[in-house]
């Protein structure tokens, strides 16, 4: 019997962020035929953020803003153009292998069916990862059955089924079990509950909350569903056209959004009270083409408060208050030149 898989060790202690992303950038070249001019899609452009140990960070934004690309870059499923990804203070390289990183960081994909091999039974799919890392077949199967119980599926019923023989919610539970099989410390959930109907979504969200508490996990929760993100996250990160526009504690961002894009996004949430229905569109038009993003602040083409400075100067992420709430808007940068910006205190 081989030794069971141990979770990889905590290195930096509680104070060190589990994930530290600095200047992450991914550009996709498109076209570039013999005569066509080569163009570049700036899918993820200079994204920096940190995820603390035991925290749940949500990433929101409309489709095409680079959320999923960010997830794939973090998992090293895709080569990044530049930027650093530090996992518990370590960069993948000589002393910290990609294999080790993948022990520590796992991902749950959106499409529960496409992310399971249709030719493998559920047990085989879950046991695959541990076997790759040197666990014996028998021990890996035991682990798989154990995990099935943990995600609320009876192993004697489900272990030998094929993915097409179970429902969508059950498949996503299997995907969660598969991600947990390597005992990761960070789980990236890329739209993991978005394809499920509401009642099943709630069950899976509760399962995720329970698992986090029981296993001491850290989540990076990517979704376009603002309600779900508010429910599950401690901090939230808002992305627009491949960039972070706002970042902060979830209540601070939801109750006092500082960036006009976040405000528009929150205003677009359907109200529970029919008397407070959203009557006027908070934002109009499609996001600009990421091939040729607008100059300065990328949101200035759709922003109701856009002024001259917005099309010229790129706003840096700046503190809104003392709580760690940051926004990339000239309106919060003292002395930025925007008429609504706070006045720069005399030095």
């Amino acid at each position: 019997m081989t030794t069971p898989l141990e979770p990889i060790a905590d290195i930096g202690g509680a104070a060190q962020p589990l994930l530290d992303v600095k200047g992450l950038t991914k550009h996709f070249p498109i076209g570039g035929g013999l005569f066509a001019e080569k163009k570049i899609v700036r899918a993820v452009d200079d994204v920096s953020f940190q995820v603390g140990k035991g925290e749940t960070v949500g990433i929101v934004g409309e489709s095409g803003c680079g959320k999923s690309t960010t997830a794939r870059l973090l998992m090293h499923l895709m080569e990044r153009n530049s930027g650093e990804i530090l996992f518990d203070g370590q960069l993948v390289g000589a002393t910290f292998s990609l294999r080790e990183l993948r022990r520590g960081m796992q991902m749950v994909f959106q499409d529960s069916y496409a992310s399971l091999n249709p030719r493998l039974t559920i047990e085989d799919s879950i046991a695959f990862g541990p076997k790759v890392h040197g666990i014996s077949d028998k021990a890996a199967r035991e682990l798989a059955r154990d995990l099935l119980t943990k995600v609320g599926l009876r192993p004697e019923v489900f272990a030998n089924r094929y993915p097409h023989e179970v429902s969508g919610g059950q498949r996503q539970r299997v995907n969660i079990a598969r991600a947990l099989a390597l005992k990761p410390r960070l789980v990236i959930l890329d739209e993991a509950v978005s394809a499920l109907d509401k009642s099943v979504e709630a069950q899976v969200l509760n399962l995720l909350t329970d698992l986090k508490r029981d296993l001491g996990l850290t989540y990076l929760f990517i979704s376009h569903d603002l309600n779900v993100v508010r429910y599950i996250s401690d901090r939230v990160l808002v992305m627009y056209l491949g960039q972070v526009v706002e970042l902060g504690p979830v209540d601070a961002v939801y109750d006092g959004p500082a960036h006009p894009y976040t405000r528009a996004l929150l205003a677009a949430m359907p109200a529970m009270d029919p008397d407070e229905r959203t009557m006027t569109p908070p934002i109009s038009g499609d996001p600009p083409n990421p091939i040729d993003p607008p100059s300065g602040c990328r949101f200035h083409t759709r922003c109701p408060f856009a002024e001259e400075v917005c099309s010229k100067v790129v706003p840096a992420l700046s503190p809104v208050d003392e709580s760690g709430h940051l926004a990339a808007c000239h309106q919060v940068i003292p002395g930025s030149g925007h008429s609504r910006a706070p006045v720069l205190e005399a030095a």
Partner: protein
Amino acid sequence: MTAASDAALQAAPVHKARGYWATVGRRLLRDKVAVVCGFILLLIVLAAIFAPFLHLADPYQGSMIRRLRPIGTPGYPLGTDELGRDMLSRLVYGGRLSLLIGILPVILAFCIGTSLGLVAGYAGGKVNTAIMRTVDVFYAFPSVLLAIAISGVLGAGIVNSIVSLTVVFIPQITRVAESVTTSVRNLDFVDAARASGAGPLTIMRVHMLGNVLGPIFVYATGLISVSMILAAGLSFLGLGTKPPEPEWGLMLNTLRTAIYVNPGVAALPGVMIFAVSICFNMLSDGLRSAMDIRN
């Protein structure tokens, strides 16, 4: 899925794990056409293998006075050919070479083509371009012409026709394998496998092979009939088997002059080629639907 049916699923009787290929076999047995075709093929193959034990007439023993007897002549159930040799015996013995030339090139091409296509499809990028463009060069020629050209260069003979047919089929199988692999490669479960830290060889073995083999296998079974017809064509042109060796294509060639004298006998080798081709096609069709896991 509602809570009620969820509960029903949970309470469902315990599933016994059944191997994938066992379920495919079970589904194939329910397909009547495929079963009949498989039975006919089995009969022909067994007859060819055990020909020496069937107490048939000598397939090489000719007789000038008993040439081109019609079907049903006493002592010669399927008549005699242009040299007075027993047709039944020659057809049974001919099956040995014809089936060998029909099946062996496809098996060889299946192994080589699948490996090439799998590597090209999984690696993508420059590796893919290198392999696929090389394959395209072969694709530029019609398969009959290519087979004739290669056989012509290598010289007549059974081994050479097997080699030339293998070369003809490799590009076709590679192309199918590459396109299937590419489509599977982009599915999330391959990314999930990569994310679990598995190397490319493990991923190809565990996650790719099972999902790509089916369509390639079905395509390859369809090629067996093409291979037999091409091999018959090569023999017909004198590039394959040499007389007096019994082989269906060659027999069709030598008997064609007798088509006005005794059309029934002259058509027999063609009937055999036709029957085997149709059976392989039907069988591969049945296999295709049996391999669909959602049935």
